[in-house]
């Protein structure tokens, strides 16, 4: 398992829209690499008989019935929005393209 590079951290920061200085990158690259390497040790310990798992609790199919429940009012929905207009959330100009 290879360690985390500084360029990986810069890329992840950009994807997560986190603004990082060069000093931040220097400092966090080392710290994050140590964390990733530690977690990677688990893979060494786990034998072939331990399947990869995403959920620690052995539960499944926790569903709900398709029954309508009350929604928020428009006023309540918009109450904590920084800005609203015409019953909608007002957001800054979108520079990127539609995903």
């Amino acid at each position: 398992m290879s360690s985390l590079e500084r360029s990986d951290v810069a890329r992840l920061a950009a994807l997560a829209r986190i603004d990082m200085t060069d000093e931040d990158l220097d400092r966090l690259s080392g710290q994050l690499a140590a964390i990733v390497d530690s977690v990677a040790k688990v893979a060494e310990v786990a034998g072939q008989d331990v399947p990869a798992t995403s959920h620690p609790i052995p539960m499944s199919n926790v569903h709900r019935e398709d029954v309508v429940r009350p929604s928020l009012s428009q006023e309540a929905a918009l109450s904590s929005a920084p800005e609203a207009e015409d019953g909608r959330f007002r957001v800054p100009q979108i520079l990127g393209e539609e995903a």
Partner: protein
Amino acid sequence: MSAMTYDKAMEQFDPVFGIEVHVELNTKTKMFCGCANEFGAEPNTQVCPVCLGLPGSMPVVNDKAVESAIRLGLSLGCSIRESSRFARKNYFYPDLAKDYQISQYDEPTCFEGSLDVVLDDGEVFTIGIERAHMEEDAGKNTHVGGTGGIQGASHSLVDYNRGGVPLVEIVTHPITGAGARTAEVARAYVATIRDIVKALGISDGRMEQGSVRADVNLSLRPKAVAGEDQNAVPFGKRSETKNVNSLRAIERAIHFEATRQADLLLAGEPVVQETRHWHEDTGSTTSGRSKEQAEDYRYFPEPDLLPVEPSREWVEELRGTIPEHPAKMRARLKEEWAFSDTDMRDAVNADALDLIAASVAAGAKPQAARKWWMGELARTANDRGVTLRDLPVTPQDVAQLQGLVDEGKINDKLARQALEGVLAGEGSPAEVVESRGLAVVSDDSALEAAVDEALAAQPDVLAKIQDGKVQAAGAIVGAVMKATRGQADAGRVREIILQRAGVEG
């Protein structure tokens, strides 16, 4: 302008395409919360902490959405995974309140299927399905300022009513071998998916409302030289045209992209692997973001949701609810109804098949049901700018109307008047016939009186008839029909005329 055309592009290159279809499910509630899933409500009135992504809120899977996804998967011949899970797809865009979309990534619920699509000339083309997975829809952005598009907008407004609505995304394998019929096959594929979701009753299938939406991938590769296997030729770089939301637009988008890419390739320029936007008004695409660097969604398993593990018994039970494949059903109905190719195609294009079928089930003869839906009612729908099923008339009404004609209570002309009454909200055909007094005059004495009057008024015609020119009776029939305001049975009138004239018909 280049002289490149779709046909020329297809002569020189071998097209490979793929389609992603998003189907909006018609569950009562959203995918992960109990907000109503309904089109057209006031903005932000069908939202709650879950679909607004407020801190501390937790999603819970809608059981009906899982059922719909499995039924759709089974209809596409897919295997249903014994254990599937949700994943977070991370990206920043204001129509996603959480900054991620809950989707499925490495363990989609439905995988590896295939679907036969039938082209207009009856040729069958098999499309390989890679997967059909569950996810949630995004909210709706309105761009303010500029020209209403994203470019030049001063800001945007977001309505999250659609955010969290359940979707099934169906992804094909790369489709090869369609050649010059690529655009047709793509269109037929999406039409087939639309028909299937409607037949399953899991979506209204309305492309104009965005209930079925398609993204179209296309690439061109060189044609194999003699002795070379076309399948051994590597794929070219592809473009992905987003949100192509009508059947016609799918064909047009493929025509445009094939032409554009062929032009680039022949000029020795590279095709860039990228997302492109479809413009309905100009029938063209423009570059969106380039895929190579921008796309990294950092998928990871959704920790707030548990795996979906449908029991084999449930899956088999659902398999038992899958209706007949629409293409097979059409072939069967065409045969049963003795429709011509044109009759059938017109009925399908008018989306009238199930209305005709329901009318037939209610007792109407197939040709009669077709005549009403494709004639008078199609005209009315067109005049009113609505679809057939939006008209205030039911298949039962049509069957009843035709029944009244068949019984001789009314003739065709009166039936059209009765239908007008039904469309005006005056009640069932029988009620309208009653209230408007439309019944055919079948009382012979009344008809005889009218015939006598008409014959007396036109003695020359009577002479002609008696002279053997039986066709002259038409003038008298017309006069009697006029006198009875169209309420006489023309056949019976003619019989009476001939009797009175002493001539046997």
